């Protein structure tokens, strides 16, 4: 895995790009940049200047573009993954934060925090095609694997809103703990996990019954419960292991995907926000907001193996499929 870098940085990048290396893109909320990380070397190879306050970040399904929500510019920027330059903006509505694509990569659903709205965007035409009124301060966005149900969480209303993507109507609302921030479906669609930052829990929801079937709580010796704030979630493709970022607790909780018991806490950087797996699921990268770095977790051994310095206040991370 670890490639020698005897011939200088330029050659290292070249070698990395030719092999199985993936590229991770980290949005730095404060420095208005994206750090580009080579996941073979686990090093920053480039920094892209973007708009103001970049947070939510994803790659388009075809891998051609990075999408990054720049909240203070009220838009989502599209960055060409080949040239690493901003080439277009999407009409996201005001203050976009998190967003999600439909399985075909044609529709983008965006949470507009200031507007109690989810905006629906046609990605080919780059025009808004609809909006759904949701609760106060929409944030987390999840999509069922079949693309039929969109879930939005609203931070002050404290609900997960289930939206039928065909009719664009809310079909159910499920109360969760305070300030829900992130929503993630299991790949088989059997469970939806919603994190509550202030509540400090993850609600496991049965998407068919629209009911909370389990609340995962976290206890870390020596830490006050106020410091344990659940934010980002990652679940392995087989649904067997979940990872939950615990914010100012500076830890990632490893959760058994079947029993929902917490198996382990991994110490990462300060104020851990979000995470992404490499496509081979060998590694999980987490963004650590206050310590300005990214932790690399070995998913098999459940150990933190490396820390990468990025820009100021890293927030989101997305990893290319090749």
């Amino acid at each position, binding site marked *: 895995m670890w490639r020698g870098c005897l011939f200088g940085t330029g050659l290292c990048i070249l070698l990395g790009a030719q092999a199985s290396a993936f590229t991770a893109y980290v949005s730095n909320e404060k420095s208005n940049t994206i750090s580009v990380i080579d996941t073979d070397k686990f090093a920053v190879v480039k920094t892209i200047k973007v708009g103001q306050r970049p947070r939510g970040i994803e790659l388009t399904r075809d891998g051609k573009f990075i999408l990054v929500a720049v909240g203070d510019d009220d838009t989502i920027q599209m960055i060409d993954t080949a040239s690493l330059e901003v080439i277009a903006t999407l009409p996201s509505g005001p203050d976009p934060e998190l967003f999600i694509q439909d399985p075909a990569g044609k529709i983008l659903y965006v949470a507009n925090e200031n507007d*109690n709205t989810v905006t629906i965007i046609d990605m080919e035409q780059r025009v808004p095609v609809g909006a759904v009124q949701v609760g*106060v301060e929409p944030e987390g966005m999840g999509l069922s694997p079949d693309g039929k149900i969109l879930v939005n969480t609203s931070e*002050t*209303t*404290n609900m997960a809103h289930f939206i039928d993507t065909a009719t664009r109507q809310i079909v*159910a609302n499920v*109360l969760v703990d305070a300030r829900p921030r992130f929503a993630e479906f299991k790949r088989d669609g059997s*469970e939806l996990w919603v994190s509550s930052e202030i509540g*400090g829990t993850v609600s496991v929801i049965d998407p068919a019954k629209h*009911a909370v079937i389990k609340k995962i709580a976290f206890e870390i010796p020596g830490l006050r419960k106020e410091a344990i704030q659940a934010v980002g979630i990652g679940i392995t493709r087989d649904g067997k292991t979940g990872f939950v970022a615990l914010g100012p607790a500076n830890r990632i909780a490893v959760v058994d995907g079947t029993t929902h018991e917490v198996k382990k806490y991994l110490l990462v950087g300060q104020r851990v926000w979000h995470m992404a797996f490499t496509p081979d699921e060998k590694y999980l990268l987490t963004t650590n907001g206050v310590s300005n770095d990214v932790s690399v977790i070995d998913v098999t051994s459940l150990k933190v193996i490396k820390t990468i310095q990025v820009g100021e206040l890293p927030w989101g991370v997305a990893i290319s499929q090749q």
Partner: protein
Amino acid sequence: MIRRLSAGIVLLASISASAQPVETKIGYLHRVEPKAGLSLLQVPPENNGVAGAQVAINDNNTTGKFLNQHFSLEEVRIDESKDAAAAAAALAERGISLVIADLPADGLLAAADAGKSTNLLLFNAGAIDERLREEDCRANVIHTAPTRSMLADALAQYLVWKQWRRWLLIVGSHPADQLYGDALRRAAKRFGARLVQEKVFEDTGGARRTDSGVVQIQRQMSTFTQGAPAYDVVVAADESEAFALYLPYRTWDPRPVAGSAGLVPTSWDASHDQWGAVQLQERFSKQFARRMTARDMQAWTAVRMIGESASRTRSTEPKAMLDFLKGPDFTLAAFKGQRLTLRDWNLQLRQPILLSDGRMIVSVSPQEGFLHQVSELDTLGVDRPESKCRLK
């Protein structure tokens, strides 16, 4: 697909709106006192407090539309504190048993006692008096306003963290100033600061604004602080706004000012932008074309507590609400970076305190390193073992 339900987990059925929403009227009882204020920027707006409640009503209603609940606010202004009991009774007669109160201490107690027989639940969003949470505490009054001791402790922790331990304490001559002075003295003792000298600033009355302006003031403040023993910071207790705002840049020795001017501890500030606060600031200024004050935030918090309780318990009956708010399942998200909960021994809301210089948030207390066995928020204010409150 789901194999087992864990015991103790509440199964929340999915929620969908139907028929006529359940209406909850919330009273807002306040006494509006005209206040001149030394700084034009600090003259309280006409709708101070009630505007915050209104924004929270809107927030509750956005949530309520998914739960078939609707909230509205009924504002009652009184001119004298002595009218508070009658006003509370009048609200009860109209079937309003949840009331946000922004009243002086005596008026608040009168309203609370008058409403005891009608199950009135008051939310004190204005008075910071210690005695309302101590010897005069009431089982039907929840406090979203912080106490003087919480404010003083929040400031003291920061000053001690800065190693500004030698304080020149200047206290105004009005009763409220004296009470704040007491809280600051207590805070100094608790956290290891030392009062090198105490001075009283006599308010001799007079206009807040004059055509002659500040010419005299810069001399007056300079000589007033002359000859003090060596100190790190001036700490001023001036709730009456008679002098503290004149201190910065005018002290004899070049020293920072804190307390009622300079670095001010507060429950909210228009410059607070962390932890999603910008969203609330923008909602507020969009609706009211002004900045959000601490009083607005305390009222917002009270109305949100009602909304939160209503959405969790599906009830707005005061007894059920109080039980929920006192219980282990209540937490409120209020843009302070951590959950807010109630001290069950005196119904005071635990909350971080912002330290503002009037332009920016300098810091947020509790400060790192001030530890507590239950909650670090309980390092601010009178803690359970010292409390004189016996809720009845």
